[in-house]
């Protein structure tokens, strides 16, 4: 029987028999449908990537008011489109670490203040121009200059000087930073001819595809770049559709209009997975849903109030009821196992007695106002209500104020002392801490000001010994865990789904969902 199964697997993988036929014959051999499905997927993967065909993707987040300028990319669609036509110097490697893209290799001076990126020889932009070190320098200048509006500005602020040196680019920092390559992998930093200074929205880059048809917020068509230097990209054409409505996106996948979608709503992910011909993929990532307190505003300036609230939240309940199990509990730091150099801290659990103890100790007596809105994270008002209930068993009175979605990010988040929010996470701990927990950070949304934390963060950047560095991050994590203004109950998984028409999903890639937005290029049309 094994011979028969193997024979059928090969036939199916080569496309000699249809999926329906394969499933039917497997059933006749007494193989369960679920197992046969897995076997088919394995067989297809084993047969290797197929080139050609059209792969259709529908994702959320685009708008007709978007721009093609990579500096302004601020949503999933823009990130995905950047990946089609452009490349940064380097990129996160699928299993962790950094791999070269426009740069072939890179090295730093022993103190990690001067970095040299050697460009990949002989690669060209999609307009035929050769990629020069000057183009790279101009790109970094455009994203870090005084006049810039780039979303990557915060990352590039400690660059002192960028210069071309033959076929290399030398970046000099005003202080050591062992993580600079991770910064250079940012999705805004697509290398463009003359840095995009002449025409930022031209979408000319070194990426594996070339944009053929662009309708902002509606549809993008990308065709294989015949001169691409690497072997990334299987489908001949990728059609990217913007479908912001959750139900419509799932329906488009189920009815076979598209092959791949992102952000399946957790509430319905179980149902979607049961539909025939649909595979749901969950990937744990660094994204987290949070309640943030301003450490410098009463009553949250009292650490006992902060600890009372941290002990009064039921993390597992939130994962079960808000994420429907598609996530993991947080531990009041923004860091989880998806980060390199992660150290596990003792897990804080729901303990109304301890919450009450800390509240009594603080001497605070009154109700606490929490602001929330639908768009601060999916299910935020529900999560706030759960928090209210778990706190009430500790005798703490939480008042919830529902704010409008419009203007939440400008009027409430990073402005009001206690609100719900989310973070997408960053590739390294240094980046996450620098973005939001350093006392001078632009987005220090918890108004956290801890001298020891700041010193450790700066020192860790210069520390090239991994063991010592890991310990420093663990110490920083402990400080945040015990004194920070962040209540982090849960880390949310990315939930994506693909149809049986395509194959090649790789589980557990680092970065964003959809295999860090490489799934459209790495997967292939199988049927």
């Amino acid at each position, binding site marked *: 029987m094994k011979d028969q199964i193997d024979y059928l697997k090969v036939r199916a993988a080569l496309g000699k028999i249809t999926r329906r036929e394969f499933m039917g014959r497997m059933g006749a051999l007494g193989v369960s449908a679920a197992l046969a499905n897995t076997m088919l997927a394995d067989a297809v993967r084993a047969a290797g990537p197929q080139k050609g065909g059209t792969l259709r993707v*529908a994702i959320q987040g685009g*708008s*007709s*008011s*978007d*721009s093609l300028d990579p500096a*302004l990319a*601020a*949503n999933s669609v823009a990130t995905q489109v950047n990946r089609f036509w452009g490349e940064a110097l380097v990129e996160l490697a699928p299993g962790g670490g950094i791999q070269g893209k426009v740069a072939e290799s890179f090295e730093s001076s022993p103190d990690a203040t001067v970095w040299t990126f050697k460009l990949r020889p002989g690669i060209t932009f999609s307009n035929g121009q050769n990629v020069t070190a000057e183009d790279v320098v101009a790109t970094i200048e455009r994203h870090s200059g*005084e*006049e*810039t*509006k*780039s*979303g990557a*500005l*915060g990352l590039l602020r400690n660059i002192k000087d960028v210069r071309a040196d033959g076929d290399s680019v030398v970046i000099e920092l005003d202080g050591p930073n062992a993580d600079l390559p991770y910064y250079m992998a940012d999705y805004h930093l697509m290398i463009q001819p003359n840095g995009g200074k002449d025409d930022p*929205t031209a979408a000319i880059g070194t990426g594996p595809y070339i944009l053929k048809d662009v*309708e*902002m*917020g*509606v*549809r993008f068509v990308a065709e294989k770049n015949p001169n691409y230097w690497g072997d990334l990209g299987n489908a001949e054409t990728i059609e990217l*559709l*913007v*479908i*912001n*409505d959750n*139900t*419509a996106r799932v*329906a*488009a996948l*189920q*009815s*076979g*209009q*598209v092959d791949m979608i992102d952000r399946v709503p957790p509430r319905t992910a179980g149902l979607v997975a049961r539909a025939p011909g649909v595979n749901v993929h969950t990937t744990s990532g660094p994204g987290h849903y949070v309640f943030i307190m301003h450490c410098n505003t009463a009553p949250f300036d009292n650490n006992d109030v902060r600890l009372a609230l941290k002990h009064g939240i039921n993390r597992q309940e939130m994962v079960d009821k808000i994420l429907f199990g598609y996530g993991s509990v947080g531990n009041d730091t923004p860091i989880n196992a998806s980060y390199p150099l992660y150290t596990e801290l003792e897990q804080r659990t729901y303990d109304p007695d301890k919450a009450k103890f800390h509240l009594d100790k603080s001497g605070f007596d009154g109700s606490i106002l929490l602001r929330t809105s639908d768009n601060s994270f999916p299910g935020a008002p529900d999560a706030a209500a759960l928090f209210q209930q778990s706190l009430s068993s500790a005798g703490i009175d939480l008042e919830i104020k529902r704010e*409008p979605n*419009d*203007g939440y*990010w*400008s*009027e409430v*988040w990073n402005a009001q002392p206690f609100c719900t929010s989310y973070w997408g996470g960053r590739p390294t701990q240094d980046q996450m801490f620098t973005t939001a927990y350093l006392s001078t950070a*632009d*987005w220090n949304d918890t108004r956290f000001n801890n001298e020891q934390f700041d010193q450790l963060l700066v020192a860790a950047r210069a520390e090239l010994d991994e063991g010592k560095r890991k310990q420093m991050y663990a110490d920083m994590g402990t400080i945040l865990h015990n004194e920070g203004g962040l209540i982090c109950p849960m880390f949310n998984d990315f939930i994506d789904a693909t149809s049986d028409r395509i194959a090649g999903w790789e589980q557990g890639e680092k970065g964003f969902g959809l295999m860090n937005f490489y799934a459209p290029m790495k997967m292939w049309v199988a049927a």
Partner: protein
Amino acid sequence: MPLLVKLLVQRIALGLLLLFLVSILIFVGTIILPGDVAQSILGQSATPEALANLRAELGVNDPPVARYFAWLGGVLTGDLGTALTSGLDIAESLGSRLSNTLFLAFWAAIIAVPLAIFLGLLAVRYRERWPDKLISAVTLASISVPEFLIGYVLMFFIGVKLRLFPSTAVSFRPDASLGDKLEAIALPIAVLTLVVLAHMMRMTRAAILNVMQSAYIETAELKGLSMFTIIWKHAFPNSIAPIVNVVMLNLAYLVVGVVVVEVVFVYPGMGQYLVDHVSKRDVPVVQACGMVFAAVYIGLNMVADIVSILSNPRLRHPK
């Protein structure tokens, strides 16, 4: 016909005045909304420097009154300006979006209007009997359910389960053949038809029933004319005015009220375009869309007024 000319001139002048007032309202509305365009473009990841740079570049630091008159000056010379967010020419983007919306509205109207009037006539013919009750029940039920829910239900049964028509309009291409285009928007048309049907059908029924009480209808009945001939030849022409009114109102709705349907079915029309730019506080685009919507509304209502005046001799020859 000097009366008609006078009427037209009067109405158009009034319409223009209304448009002007609407433009002020929209502008004030976008200013009252919290957040600004720079904040919306850069989102949660905005830094103060990036915000300041972007605001300066977009020219939104000028006082609101100056910005409004700059915009008004542009519009009066036929220049709608460029979108703050994407930098694209508004007239161009708006043109293709508007033609998509009109295409959808046109086909929905082609099906919905005759169907509604026919069903209305049918309901009158079989008044208080089962066809009347069935028609009323079904159309009232369909108008009572929110549009997005009808959309989801059709999407699930017709798109996903039966696979008769595409579940979303993403395959719609303006340059495709008419057949392909209609296939892509079959479900949105169905939803829109269901939504506007009841209003027009009920109004047709009520208007004709009203006329049916008149003495001349009784005369017609006594002459021995068939029921349908009476309704069609005698009752219908005299109830044109209210029917045209409600038809125009619904046509206007098909153009300006399709936001939800466009978003649900991912149809690249004006509604989706407007929603995207309202959320980004892109004032010039919101203004332009608002003007177009207001013009459609005012224009169709004007047509309704004029038709009802012309169809009624008492209004045509006022004392």
